[in-house]
């Protein structure tokens, strides 16, 4: 290990970290925007959910590298080529999370809201989505962490991220660079994870204890989202 490499390359490391954060964070955010309405539709019309679920689990099985290269003729060597597959992968986690979250709303709560005169939309926004939030955020945690880690694979088709340090380190036979790259990916992922836990604590101060157990269950069921 040649530690002096690090202070000499802080600028590069920072720039790659920012690029990696961008490639890793945009897909789960876009995924969230797509999966909330999709999840609501799947809960409302239950027959839609099994085919949607099969679709996402098929996509989930596809190795990231294969999807990246398959998009090259259409989106070229741009960020989009990495962002589209990672967005699809995050849907595999987020759609089930939204559906599970909405289904976890107790029927009496729903009925109470209706009895208080809430319309469908208001009940959804003010009652059902807040109750679903912890589970949706649990899904976001899985999606964000794996997407940050996966973004580095995009380097194989030349999309710049912390993966640059892996490939450059390999070509120059220089382990320090690789270790630094891995550390940055892991720190970035865990920092984003911590941030989401904070968001959850802020959003759901009224919900303690039980929610943790529910969240853990979902996390395991969603263990998918690993770094392919």
């Amino acid at each position: 290990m040649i530690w002096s490499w690090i202070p000499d390359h802080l600028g590069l490391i920072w720039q790659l970290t920012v690029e990696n954060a961008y490639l890793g964070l945009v897909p789960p955010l876009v995924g969230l925007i797509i999966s909330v309405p999709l999840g609501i539709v799947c809960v409302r019309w239950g027959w839609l959910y099994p085919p949607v679920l099969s679709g996402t689990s098929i996509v989930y099985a596809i190795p990231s590298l294969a999807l990246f290269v398959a998009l090259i003729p259409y989106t070229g060597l741009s960020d989009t080529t990495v962002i589209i597959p990672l967005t699809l992968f995050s849907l595999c986690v987020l759609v089930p999370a939204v559906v599970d979250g909405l289904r976890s709303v107790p029927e009496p709560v729903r009925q109470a809201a209706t009895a208080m005169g809430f319309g469908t939309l208001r009940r959804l926004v003010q009652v059902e989505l807040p109750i679903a939030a912890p589970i949706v955020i649990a899904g976001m945690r899985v999606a964000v962490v794996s997407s940050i880690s996966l973004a580095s694979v995009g380097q194989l088709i030349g999309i710049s991220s912390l993966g640059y340090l892996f490939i450059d380190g390999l070509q120059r036979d220089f382990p320090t660079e690789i270790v630094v790259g891995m550390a940055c990916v892991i720190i970035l992922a865990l920092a984003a994870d911590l941030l989401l836990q904070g968001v959850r604590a802020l959003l759901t101060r009224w919900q303690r204890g039980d929610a943790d157990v529910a969240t853990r269950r979902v996390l395991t069921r969603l263990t998918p989202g690993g770094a392919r």
Partner: protein
Amino acid sequence: MSFFSYAWDWLSQSQQWQGANGIPTRLVQHLVYTGLSLLIATLIALPLGVIIGHAGRGGSAVVSLANVWRSIPTLGLLVLMVIILAFSIATWLVPLVVLAIPPILVNAYEGVIGVDRDLKDAARGMGMTPRQVLLKVEIPVALPLILLGLRTAAIFVVATATIAAEIGLGGLGRYIIDGLATNNYGEVAGGAVLVVALALAVQVSFVGIRRLVVPAGLRQGAAQT
């Protein structure tokens, strides 16, 4: 030209289907890497997860393990291994096994610990020994989740073995990496189609295994997973 026409042009050339760099050889290599890693990981992680779940302790450690696991950049780990150890069987086998362990372990743990308490009490009430409760009640009930963990691990290993072509491993990933290196997009596209086909075949085989081993009474309720 679309992705599929590139892939088709390459796949339909007869020289791709023979020889040491031919598709059958590469496919078998990929299957061997995947199967071997998965087998070793299962032998380690499955008993461990079941035991921890049966004992009902260490749960939070297991779950944080799953979280850290997701953040590990596999490409980084592979290139680091090849630089430190030079290319050998351990270079790819160790990362593949280590990284296939967490999903199997966590799902086995979560499956066993999630078994309804009443069910276990009933089993004990019927006079089953702790060992029988484990083998005849807890494991069968946990089976859908255990299989889900194995499937996740399998998907993961197939994909990582593809990326491992970058450090010199054989298998179907070779076509993608070599094609990128030589600017031969036809080869890249053909390789990608083969990798996707393999990944989907693995997925389908897990649906089949599930149908064979999960008791009928459990399949209904666990359909969601």
